[in-house]
């Protein structure tokens, strides 16, 4: 068979010997053509049966039985498309090894080919086969990775690809040689150009050269090694593929949206005679067709129409078709994504699954649509697809994905080569190095809302988040930062929330009036009085690993609020359904905003009194901001100006040095995913020092009672905040300045919310218990004053005294202002002490 191969491959070529023949020399140099054909053959079965099978336009329907060379049809069809020697493939089935062996001796280098008779040109071009052959050989032999230049290593003596080939030979596993197109370009730009423009021909030669090389090194190596080109100099956008790209090598990025099942494709068919049981020689499949022998080839038998296909003796190859769709970032506004079919073979089958982002290098091809199997007429429409040469996953480009690193390491390191992604990351890193990145980020957050810079900084911290910590003991420390905004209506709290919701990877925006913590379903409730409809949705579960924005937090039902306790500390939600208690993850940061209970914030009252929220819940917020409307004409004017400019002018409110939304989102998600800052020693020290100082501050020498200004919860908050601040700079280490800024942020927030208005000091008790230390002091004073009064004025078991009388007495005695309410509370205390008995509006001493 092997000897037969050369001759066979020539005979179908003979029709090609005509004036217009693209390869006039192929016939004059038989070994050449055999090699070419052989190369094609080897490529054929493994990589691209379509190369032979569905050459650009010629569908089987167009095949003219008259015997006019199929090759010529194709060539003329597209005018400039080179002739792919698909015809010889049908008959030529030389086992690669034997052929390679044959040619082993006469050839030494690429030069050997060139010396061979007249130059052979790829049809329709001025590309000489010999030249290309030599160029490829040069490339494989001599290309050295510039990165290896410095190293001195006996193994490094060889070129990059020679080493790769050795590796393949040693492992016997690899069936393909990945060739970086950048290397080709660096070594020989001309070869690169030819390869991209005439991939079919150049790759066929590439394979031949490679096989020759292998055969010389290891004559017994039988496997076919295929060249897989990747990393082209430029990748094309899916929607920009156009007719001029047909038959060129292209590189496109996209997302796999669908994959067909794996199709076994017949490569070699074996027939058996039903009469005598004779097995035929394997018959190659040509263009999806196989010619069934009519007559049994056994001399003695010669029965006609007796041959039947033996399935388990045939050789099959895997094939798969996937659909590649544009990624969202390439779709212009108002457009829908384009798709393209990609044909995968052998090892590439199942290399990507739907949902993967990949970069594909392949040959763009078109085939015409037949009208019917029997008809010769061809529709003028073509179907296009890409014959895949190389597939690379680029999952890293998905910047805003969940924090979990689900890509394995090898993959990650490989895809980090991806220039596009690295570009993006580089840009982000560059940004992070700017000295004013913190301010810049602050400015970029909701640029349409002014002032409130410290609030914005807090929100930024929330977006970046601290590190979640899980101790071996099982204790969890959340990394999420919770923020509460309290303030007057019309202070753009809601806008801030909306904006955060847009920015956060999995933000949920809900109104407190209709939020239940759990469930993916919701309930429509109708206010019986006003008829207002409200949606009660389970917001917290939905925002796992995101920010849950709750507007009108004060209007949340107690039931739902109690659920928040669990969420904000344990980061889980428990639901009982059908007798099973399930604990769902709700690792969410809560951003809530609340309106004061009496429409406007009363500065004389504490936060607790202003927004009837239980102190236990309040203490779970890391930062509580009071946003008060300060009736400032300047701000009003700015707001008015902004609105007017929004409506009238071309609203180019683009401020300089502001990150646009996508960049900001990318920046945040990159930081969240890849930066895990650790506290440095100095920072830890600073933290301790600052904390102690904060606690000390409560011990005013003047005041008698100790005021708590910070608790252990604050120190956790501080750690989280400083970690978030370090993340903003992409710093792996939390520095002293981060801690200092965290203290500042906390203090600013506390000054607004935890300041006891009676004394002007910061008092955490206000938030922890709802009662400030000074208030408690005042109450104590009152109780003792009353106690004294009662002791003094009333007889044991004597007549009872009215509350109003007492009030008058107390007022007379003390300088403080005393309310009836306070009095009642104080009497209650005394009653529990057992000194008085309160009955209705009067009381007596007991």
């Amino acid at each position, binding site marked *: 068979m092997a000897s037969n191969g050369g001759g066979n491959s020539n005979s179908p070529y003979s029709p090609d010997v005509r004036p217009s023949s693209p390869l006039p020399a192929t016939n004059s140099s038989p070994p050449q053509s055999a090699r070419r054909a052989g190369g094609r053959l080897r490529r054929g079965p493994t990589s691209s049966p379509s190369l032979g099978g569905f050459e650009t336009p010629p569908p089987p329907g167009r095949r003219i039985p008259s015997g006019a060379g199929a090759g010529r049809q194709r060539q003329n069809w597209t005018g400039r498309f080179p002739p792919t020697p698909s015809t010889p493939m049908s008959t030529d089935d030389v086992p690669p090894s034997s052929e390679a062996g044959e040619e082993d001796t006469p050839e030494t280098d690429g030069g050997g080919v060139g010396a061979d008779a007249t130059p052979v040109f790829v049809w329709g071009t001025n590309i000489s086969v010999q030249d290309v052959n030599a160029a490829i050989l040069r490339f494989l032999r001599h290309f050295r990775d510039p990165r290896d230049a410095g190293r001195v290593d006996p193994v490094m003596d060889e070129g990059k690809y020679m080493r790769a080939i050795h590796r393949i030979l040693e492992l016997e596993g690899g069936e393909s040689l990945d060739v970086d197109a950048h290397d080709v370009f660096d070594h020989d730009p001309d070869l690169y150009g030819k390869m991209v423009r005439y991939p079919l021909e150049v790759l066929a030669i590439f394979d031949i050269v490679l096989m020759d090389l292998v055969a010389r090194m290891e004559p017994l190596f039988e496997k076919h090694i295929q060249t897989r080109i990747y990393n082209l100099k430029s990748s094309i956008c899916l929607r920009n593929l156009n007719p001029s790209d047909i038959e060129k090598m292209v590189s496109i990025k996209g997302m796999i949206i669908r994959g067909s099942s794996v199709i076994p494709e017949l490569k070699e068919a074996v027939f058996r005679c039903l009469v005598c049981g004779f097995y035929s020689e394997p018959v190659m499949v040509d263009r999806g067709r196989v010619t069934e022998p009519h007559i049994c080839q056994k001399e003695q038998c010669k029965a006609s129409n007796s041959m039947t296909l033996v399935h388990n003796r045939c050789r099959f190859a895997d094939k798969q078709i996937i659909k590649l769709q544009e990624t969202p970032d390439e779709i212009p506004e108002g*457009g829908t994504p384009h798709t393209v079919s990609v044909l995968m073979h052998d090892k590439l089958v199942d290399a990507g699954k739907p949902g993967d982002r990949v970069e594909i290098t392949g040959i763009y091809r078109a085939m015409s649509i037949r009208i019917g199997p029997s008809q010769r007429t061809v529709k003028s429409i073509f179907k296009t697809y890409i014959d895949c040469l190389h597939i690379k996953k680029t999952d890293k480009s998905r910047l805003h994905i969940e924090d979990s690193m689900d890509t394995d390491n090898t993959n990650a390191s490989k895809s980090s080569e991806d220039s596009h992604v690295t570009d993006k990351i580089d840009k982000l890193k560059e940004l992070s190095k700017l000295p004013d990145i913190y301010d810049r980020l602050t400015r970029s957050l909701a640029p349409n809302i002014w002032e409130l810079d410290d609030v914005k900084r807090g929100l930024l911290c929330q977006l970046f988040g601290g590190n979640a910590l899980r101790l071996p003991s099982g204790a969890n420390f959340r990394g999420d930062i919770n923020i509460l905004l309290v303030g007057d209506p019309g202070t753009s709290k809601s806008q801030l929330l909306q904006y955060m919701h847009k920015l956060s990877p999995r933000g949920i925006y809900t109104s407190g009036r*209709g939020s239940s913590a759990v469930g993916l379903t919701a309930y429509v409730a109708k206010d019986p009085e006003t008829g207002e409809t409200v949606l009660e949705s389970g917001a917290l579960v939905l925002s796992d690993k995101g920010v849950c924005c709750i507007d009108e937090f004060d209007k949340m039902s107690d039931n739902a609020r109690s659920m928040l306790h669990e969420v904000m500390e344990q980061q889980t939600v428990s639901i009982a359904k059908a007798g099973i208690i399930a604990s769902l993850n709700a690792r969410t940061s809560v951003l809530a905003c609340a309106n004061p209970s009496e429409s406007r914030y009363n500065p004389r009252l504490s936060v607790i009194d202003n927004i009837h929220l239980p102190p236990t819940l309040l203490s779970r917020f890391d930062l509580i901001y009071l946003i008060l409307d300060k009736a400032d004409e300047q701000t009003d004017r700015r707001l008015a100006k902004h*609105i007017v400019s*929004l409506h009238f002018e071309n609203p180019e409110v683009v401020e300089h040095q502001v990150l646009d939304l996508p960049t900001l989102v990318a920046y945040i998600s990159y930081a969240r995913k890849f930066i895990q800052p650790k506290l440095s020693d100095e920072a830890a020290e600073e933290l301790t020092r600052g904390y102690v100082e904060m606690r000390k501050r409560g011990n005013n020498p003047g005041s008698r009672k100790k005021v708590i200004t910070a608790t252990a919860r604050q120190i956790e908050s501080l750690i989280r905040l400083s970690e978030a601040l370090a993340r903003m700079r992409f710093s792996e280490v939390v520095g002293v300045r981060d801690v200092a800024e965290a203290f500042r942020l906390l203090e600013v927030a506390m000054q607004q919310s935890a300041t006891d208005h009676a004394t002007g000091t910061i008092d955490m008790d206000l938030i922890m218990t709802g009662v400030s230390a000074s208030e408690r002091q005042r109450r104590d004073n009152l109780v003792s004053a009353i106690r004294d009064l009662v002791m003094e004025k009333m007889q044991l078991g004597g007549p009872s005294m009215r509350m109003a009388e007492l009030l008058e007495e107390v007022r007379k005695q003390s300088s403080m202002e005393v309310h009836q309410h306070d009095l009642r509370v104080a009497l209650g205390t005394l009653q529990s002490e057992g000194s008085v008995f309160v009955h209705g509006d009067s009381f007596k001493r007991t």
Partner: protein
Amino acid sequence: MVGPQYDLVGNPLGAVRATFERAAAAAAAESGGRDPVAAFRSKDWGASEVFRSFLFEQGGLDKVPVLDASNLGLIKPNTLVRFRGMVQDMLGNEFYAGAFKDGATWRTNKFTDFSPFSMPHPCDSHLWERHLFHCVPVPGQNSWTLDSSPGPDLRQMVNCLSPEQREKRKRDGDDDAMDVSENGNGESSSCSKKPKEDDVQIPSSSAEMPASENMPQMNGNDHHIPGSSFSCLVKIYDMPESQVKLNDVAEFIGVYTFDPELAAPNDNSDDIMYDLIEDVTAQLPPSKVPRLHCLVWRKLSSVDFLAKHPAVEPLPSLLKGIRQSLLSHLTLVLGKDDLAANCLLLHLLSRLRTRVDVVTVGRLSLNFTGFNRESVSIFGKQLNTLIQGLMPYSQAIPLSIEYLNTATLQPRKDNKSGRLVTAILQLPQGTHLTFDETLLQSGSLASKGVENTVLLKNLMESQMVEYDFEYYKLEMATDVQLLTLSEGKSNILPSDLVVPFRPSTVSEVNATSEELESWRWYLATVRSLPQSSEPEIYQTIQDEMVSAMRNDRSLGCTELSRWLTMAQITASSFGEKSLSLEHWQMVKELERLRKERMQ
């Protein structure tokens, strides 16, 4: 071009070919015979020019029949048709052998799926590309828009009917379409000659078409029921794809082709390849989805739907009059509620003007509260009828728990079939939606219901609809006017403007068709009026805003922004190009009345 040599309506391809051959010959002479047609890739060689001048300058537009579900079987293939529709899906590019060499002459396949001359194999050819768009009749299109640009009446259409019917036409004698075709009698121009030429490829289409397929009638509301709608596959040439956007409404004029053979499935295809690299178009059988090879197209705006273009300058005095009549009609429809009528007018005139980040400027969604089931059946119905009569596209959506849980609002890409599955919220720009929330009772929403409410809320707040592409979502910008009728303020659909509705009388009012026409013209004109303003007014408005804020601290950015929007719409409703203080005061007064009611 000197005069129409061809029956451009009956045999547009003849004209295409003739121009091509002429251009090719000229190019060949110039280039010395070396690949003369290469230059014609994605370029027009003069064919569209011929049609453009015929259609728009010589009034040929009226002679072109309008393709719709009712006449799908009647129109002869390879004739010129018109189709008005919305781009529902973009199916990407299609490559075709645009030009090929038949012997010594170059032929073209442009504007057809089939080669009119059998292509010799092998032959020199050029691959060209064209864009495919799947177009449907505009969702929610109101019936009055259909009369605006009717096709030729039957007498003229006969020209393109099947041979039996043409017999009658012959007797008919003098119709101008005939004259046109007789001019070029030497060429293969008129319909009568065509069938012979195409005999091989195209059997008579009308015979092939079962009568039942002509059934679906255009009907305002059921475009979303899959299968019942009529659609058209438009192939557009020589244009960057970005010119057409999803949900654009456009008129396409081009060659209607029908190739029944394309529909025939490749049953005995021994080639698995053909099945796998399947074509989206394979699911659009030509018998149901006609192919239109577009020669000329233009985007349509609401002005294009007006019955006749009154070439009147939109003078303030004229607009003021119409405004008054429309406003009084609105007041009557709304049971003499003057405030509600004023707000409704502003709402109807609103349109999305700009978009900055997440902020949208110019929209004014309206929420009438105080409705219950009874009043909705009276006023809501009247309101709907009126809106249908005024707006080119409108839909009324009954918002109930069941609806939210079951309706498909989100357009979704079906990656199996490769097509975008339409849904309620795939709407063209400028659609009017009315939600009836009185039907909404307490109840649970399933996850679909939650998704739907989120979609609606997003639409309300940012005029964006998220399309589901399975592996990611894509936000599409819309410009939809939203009106909600509800009992109390709707928190599910938060509108910009909430107006308690207080009707005092119930009266049946009907507008005459002239009135309706003038109102339509008014709405379309005012909405497209450009807005300009002098810088002086900026300062005044800013001062006004600051003083308003001083008086009422609860005023925030949203309210003031809305005020300004309302003031601008008020200005243009009087035909004024720029805002004046007077309009601002009117809005303030309106707001004062509204606030009073809210309490």
